[in-house]
């Protein structure tokens, strides 16, 4: 049953990423032509803009969602590529466990970074 379920989540995650990463790319890299989400003022990578986004619940929630979906989607793809190279049984287990742990670790770290930021913003006297 496993591969069928994993693949279905992979497609679902892809759809989520299409929307959220598309938005992220538009905000970060199409700001000169589109100027959406308040990027008419400061550059999107300036601290000012970072603080604005960090204090918005919408951005925090969507960042965490995007992080989870993208990590799952990317690591499932990497798993596919590695398993298709026909590793032995032991290596197969290592790949499955290793990628799962790496993905979870990155998710935990990224979520901390997303949630800790508002606190840091107020601490810097902003």
């Amino acid at each position, binding site marked *: 049953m*496993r*591969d069928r*379920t994993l*693949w279905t989540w992979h497609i679902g995650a892809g759809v989520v990423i299409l929307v959220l990463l598309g938005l992220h790319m538009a905000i970060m890299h199409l700001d000169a032509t589109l100027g959406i989400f308040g990027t008419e003022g400061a550059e999107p990578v300036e601290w000012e803009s970072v603080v604005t986004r960090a204090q918005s619940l919408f951005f925090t929630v969507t960042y965490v969602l995007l992080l989870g979906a993208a990590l799952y989607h990317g690591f499932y793809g990497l798993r*596919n590529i590695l398993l298709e190279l*026909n590793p032995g049984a032991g290596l197969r287990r290592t790949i499955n466990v290793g990628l799962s742990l790496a993905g979870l670790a990155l998710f935990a770290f990224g979520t901390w970074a997303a949630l800790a930021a508002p606190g840091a913003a107020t601490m810097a006297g902003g």
Partner: protein
Amino acid sequence: MADTSPRQVTFHVRRYEPGVDREPHWEDHRIDVLPGMTVLDGLWKVKELSAPSLAWRSSCRMGICGSCGMLINGRPRLACNTQIAELASDVVAVGPLPNFGIIKDLVPDLRPMFEMHRDLMPYLIRDDAQEQDDPTGEYWQTPHELEHYLQFSYCIKCGCCMAACPTVATDPQYAGPMPLGQAHRYNSDTRDAGFGQRREVLSGGSGPWRCHFAGECSQVCPKGVDPAKAIQLMKRELVSDLLRLRRRRPPAALAEEPHGTRREDIVPAPPRTATEA
């Protein structure tokens, strides 16, 4: 009038003698070819004139048995179905189908493909065991229901699709386009009730999840079976099943003899010749 004089063509053939050669190597053989000759005809000529030990599989020479799948000028094709003229080259490079072990010269070891095929239960699976062992009638099936799987039933198991698939190229665990296409052929047959059993095999690592639609299998299939389409349709069915959206239908019913309308002038059937083994 068309030019029917013979022209010289070089057959660049991959040779490998088990126990003698460590690696396969190429050999060149020049022969005269006439218009209308297929690569298989050319191979017979090469064997007759200059390479008597050249080995390959062929049988029907008309594209229906599936024996003569080979790598011809870089593409998996049936040797009997490929005109030398259509290759538009003075060199015809013939090698064994890739992604299978080489037994000798142009003979691939197709056993893994057939084992995967068998693992996916390519036969009708039903609950009525008595009827399966001792049939009393036919099953009803409309022409529309036939259309759902007819295309996939044309498969001649030649192995060309397996040779073309990039996933089969690296992953021996992947079932491959032929077994998966044939699993879908039976899943879509309304006479069959074996989806649940095949699903066990199909949901794992050898199932269609390693197919990423490179599409090569359908492009090289000599019978137009389109295994790529079968695999994508099967993924859809499997995901629908996962999401509990798949429509369940009972398998095709047995066609019973009509009662009370028997014609009296029908000659009775001869006695059964097949007895219990």
